[in-house]
């Protein structure tokens, strides 16, 4: 079976950047896919299924992230994760970043 590989590039649009709660949303979503998923900020490439590693990206507002997936559901994974970042980490109207005070 050939390995499916997909990739997309998205920009972090929420002013707070990818702090812990959006990172957690991202990791939770990544873990719903069977594919191997990595995220790169240009400097480092990390495992999208690890919250520790996601936090290490320190993706600030305006950072461009490359999402790369390999596996049976790679296309869907890249699409969903890209949309999450593009949508400022808002799922069904709930934002991880709306509260101004807490990180």
């Amino acid at each position: 079976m050939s390995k499916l590989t997909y990739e997309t590039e998205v920009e972090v649009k929420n002013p707070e950047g990818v702090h812990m709660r959006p990172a957690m949303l991202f990791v939770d979503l990544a873990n719903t896919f069977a594919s191997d998923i990595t995220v790169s900020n240009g400097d480092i490439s990390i495992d999208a299924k690890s919250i520790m590693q996601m936090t290490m990206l320190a993706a600030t507002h305006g950072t461009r992230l490359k999402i790369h997936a390999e596996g049976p559901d790679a296309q869907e994974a890249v699409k969903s994760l890209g949309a999450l970042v593009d949508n400022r980490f808002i799922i069904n109207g709930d934002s991880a970043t709306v509260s101004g005070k807490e990180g």
Partner: protein
Amino acid sequence: MKLADIVCFDAIIPQLESKERDSVIFELTESLCKKKKFKKVNPKALADAVIKRENEASTGIGKGVAVPHVKHDAVTEPVAVLGCSSEGIDFSSLDKQPVYSVFLLLSPLSDPDKHLQAMETIFKNLQKDDFRRFLRQAQGRDDIIEAIKDADDSSLE
């Protein structure tokens, strides 16, 4: 950014007295407030803000570590304090395991990028098995400070 730039060494608690999450957080903010003269804020208010954030989503991300944090206008630069517990604390961690090392981080309200950089520094180091092990084996503040400095040095390599 280095750990040594963020962590207030004098406020480190080598052996936390508290066994409960909320009292651990207060113990840490109290220790920090004794060493850093924050304006307009007391340890209780800081602890309450951290606990409020913690209740929204646990910062116990597994591997025996937790990083409770809050953005607060008491600080203009990220400031962290570290507390260790040999017994372990229930932080409602993702892996349901007790927490032995607690990094409490306060970040400036007005600079989200600094907060992300501080978190990156802390997690980059907590990711290292050696660093977590050294923190757990530390016999006192000097051991912890040495572990932090070693971790900073190894990050530069």
